[in-house]
């Protein structure tokens, strides 16, 4: 099964990044043999809609499931339309997350785990766009 994991670097020993749309890398891992490809996230600095773009990007790569920390409402909706399931709340290294997934410890989420703009950081100089709204 081909799955994608949001990662802070380009190896299986990198930490899982908690942000779905704005992580620096996606590791596309074949769960059978742990072979993988690391892809830089093309939408990391997208103004808005980063999660939507990431979902389209991973759908184009033929990914069937995603392991990440959090997934917002628009990304969740786009992934659902693409038929891709998501497990949220993942942490530790990519290798650990894949092992946990294989043993059934990371079930697919039924809805978004955070509100909009979770991964976007704050802007405007007064923290008016804090992540969780």
């Amino acid at each position, binding site marked *: 099964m081909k799955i994608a994991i949001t990662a802070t670097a380009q190896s299986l020993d990198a930490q899982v990044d908690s942000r779905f749309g704005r992580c620096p890398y996606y590791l596309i891992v074949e769960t059978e043999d742990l072979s993988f490809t690391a892809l830089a996230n093309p939408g990391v600095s*997208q*103004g*808005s*809609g980063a999660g*939507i*773009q990431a979902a*389209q990007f991973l*759908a184009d790569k033929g990914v069937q499931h995603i392991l990440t920390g959090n997934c917002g409402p*628009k990304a969740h*909706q*786009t992934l659902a*339309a*693409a*038929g891709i399931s998501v497990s949220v709340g993942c942490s530790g290294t990519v290798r650990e997350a894949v092992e946990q997934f294989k043993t059934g410890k990371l079930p697919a989420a039924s809805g978004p785990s955070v509100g*909009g703009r979770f991964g976007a950081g704050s*802007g*405007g*100089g*007064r923290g*008016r766009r804090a992540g969780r709204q």
Partner: protein
Amino acid sequence: MVRVQVVVVAVVPGASEREIGWLSNGKFVTTEDFLRKTRRIAVASGKGGTGKTTVATNLAVTAVKSGLSVGYLDCDVEEPNGAVFLNPDMAMTQPVNVSVPAVDLDKCSGCGQCGRICQYNAIVPMGQQVLVFPELCHGCAGCWLVCPTGAISESRRQIGQLEVGKAGPLHVVQGLLNIGEVVSPPVIAAVKGAAPDVDLLVIDSPPGTSCPVLESVRKSDLVLLVTEPTPFGLHDLRLAVAMVRALELPFAVVINRAGTGDGETRAYCVSQRLEVLAEIPEDRQVAGAYSRGELVCDTMQQYRELYAELLRKIMPNTASMAARSA
């Protein structure tokens, strides 16, 4: 109403080419006066909380007291707060709508052109569906123009509202973006579109240097960049200066809370040859007035003078314009 009786078109040694004649009451008029041109002053900043609204509201009220007809436009539509200090009576409220796509899946061929033209991921063809995220849409019309099967039509959606009123003789226009919306420029454009025909428009801009700020400062005759003498204030002043230079707009600096922080902001203004039109001192009484919703130009003599001086620098022809407005 004062009427122009004589228009003299003559080259007078030492006179500026903009000076063209005299009013019936003996006042000299310039081309600007003659064309009844509104002067548009945008008050902006890189950093938030430097005192844009403080400067904008005090400047607007000072101009009213000087006899000018004035409009205050609150373009900080994510959190407009000029009205807190001006207490206007809003006579008119109207919705601000934007265009968004409506998709008829029965006509969709799944070609994907709508998704490719959209730069904001607002329309996403995915499998048998076409997802529309209206709050990301910038209303550019690209998707319904490229759709080869006519599956996408233009629909309207309210994203905010416009309020128009007066605080005494001061015209006040403000916009309010609905909670949860992310695209504010259409509301800002509506505020600017509702500007009254006056001598002076004071445009209170949002902070930052992104699209809402560009929309606010566009077509201004002067941008006042309000900053504070701190490293953060200076960092964002540099961004704001780069922005107004890219837009080729005339601009000048106002240093608020002068006396705090360090001398770096002043040094930067000198090195870049930026005109500093006012330095507003750090003063606990100003903070007190602010927290009571008062304008210091109303309540404190030294600030009445400070804002009157700032107005003179911005509008040297205030006296002749006031005479004309009278």
